[in-house]
């Protein structure tokens, strides 16, 4: 990690690059944003943006459970609860009569409210409020390593299973005819989304993590009509928003995650206008 840091220091002749926290944040952005572009494309294709948003909200209850159990690393309780949360949502969706948006909305509210109540009951909610907006400038070298491992794992999974994911997304019955295990693939995808959201929420923030998942993928849809093209654009837009947002936030003195999301939103609207003009031609 020190070796990477020294390379960054050597090749970046900018004022902001003199600070170690900015170089660490840049490394984290270089890992997190392509990951979000990759997963976000499937989240949007599967119409699961509300689901990933609810998972983000459940992080607060995950932290609260960690505090109650006296666990030092909240990541463990957050991931554990998010996986349970994802399974509960799937279970209620499969066996209940309510529509998906209603069920997910109910769980999303519970995930947020339960966390707020438990944490505030112990008189220290302010201590955890940083999770709401995230702070990428606090990222540590071991956490960057964890992001690297997650990115590698997701890329390997996407290489092995993406074709099956796509078939299930287009039509699960057709995929089933090809002997694709539809429910297994869906659960695997939910687990990957839950893991990614939980691992990165500390730096991106509960309130805006979903925007970073959805915006680059949504913008990519305005530009590309193929699977390869949409992934290329989503990862590119995500990476560009991440790097430029981080640097801009340094000069503007704003929160990095919010700045990154605003740049991604601006790109989305530009691509939206471009697609409208193209359709009108």
């Amino acid at each position: 990690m020190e070796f990477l840091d020294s390379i960054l220091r050597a090749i970046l002749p900018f004022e902001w690059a003199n600070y170690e926290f900015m170089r660490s944040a840049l490394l984290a952005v270089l890992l997190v944003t392509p990951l979000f572009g990759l997963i976000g494309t499937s989240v949007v294709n599967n119409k699961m943006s509300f689901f990933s948003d609810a998972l983000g909200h459940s992080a607060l209850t995950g932290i609260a459970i960690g505090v109650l159990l006296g666990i030092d690393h909240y990541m463990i309780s957050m991931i554990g609860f998010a996986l349970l949360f994802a399974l509960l949502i799937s279970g209620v969706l499969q066996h209940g009569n309510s529509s998906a948006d209603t069920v997910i909305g109910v769980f999303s509210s519970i995930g947020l409210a339960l966390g707020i109540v438990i944490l505030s009951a112990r008189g220290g909610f302010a201590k955890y409020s940083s999770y709401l907006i995230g702070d990428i400038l606090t990222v540590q070298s071991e956490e960057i390593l964890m992001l690297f491992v997650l990115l590698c794992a997701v890329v390997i999974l996407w290489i092995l299973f993406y074709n099956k994911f796509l078939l299930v997304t287009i039509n699960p019955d057709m995929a089933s005819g090809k002997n694709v295990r539809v429910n297994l693939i869906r659960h695997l995808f939910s687990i990957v989304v839950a893991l990614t959201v939980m691992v990165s929420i500390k730096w991106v923030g509960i309130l805006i993590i979903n925007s970073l998942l959805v915006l680059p993928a949504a913008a990519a849809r305005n530009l590309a009509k193929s699977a390869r093209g949409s992934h290329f654009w989503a990862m590119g837009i995500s990476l560009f928003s991440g790097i430029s947002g981080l640097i801009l936030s340094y000069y503007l003195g704003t929160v990095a995650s919010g700045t990154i999301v605003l740049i991604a939103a601006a790109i989305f609207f530009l691509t939206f206008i471009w697609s409208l003009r193209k359709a009108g031609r």
Partner: protein
Amino acid sequence: MEHECKCSLKIEHLTVWRDKTEILHDVSFEAHHAEITALIGRNGAGKTTLLRSILGRIPYSGTIEFFDSEGVLVERPRIGYVPQNTILDRTIPVTVGEFLSCGCSSAPVWLVHRKKAITHAREILKKTGGEKLIDRPLSSLSGGELQRVLLAFALDPMPQLLLLDEPVSAVDRRGIESFYEVVTSLREEYHMPILLVSHDLGHVRRYATDVVLLDQTVVLCGKCEEVMDSPEIAETFGLS
């Protein structure tokens, strides 16, 4: 190319419940190789539910067994399924070539486009008359074009059983005729059993060899002419 298929499908005492309502009750029939068995019945008779049971997508009681050309039971047969094109999500950015490659290649289409897989996809499309569609996005296809692509997808790898669920909904007359011509030629060439769900009795008379009249259970089944000229058909569809 492929050997003559002598596979058959045997359904016995199939019952399906959903939300405490019995959708299918004690359904039993067989579909043999080289037969196009039409499933007909009023709306809500359970036709699509029957196909989804065969695909293993919903829980059921009873047995659905599939036998290969040697008469040996096959646990998970290769099933080609062509759904109603109106229920397909066409907003997803994916080209016809990528879609077909997903079914026949393990190379991830988000990362690489293997020349071999695309060439193979083009060859399958040729069988259904859609070779010019390979680079088109799924979202830009007309109803008839999409049906050719869906049938091509169902045919690779060559299925042991072909299920067609109202395959020509939202397709124009010319597209319907050419679709059924392809299906009939498949039956003649590969001899796999074909189950066809259709609301159009004219198509059933013209293309099916056998007919199953369904209304939660099997009302009547047999050779096409026998069933189609029966009073039960007249009663179900209000024919004079």
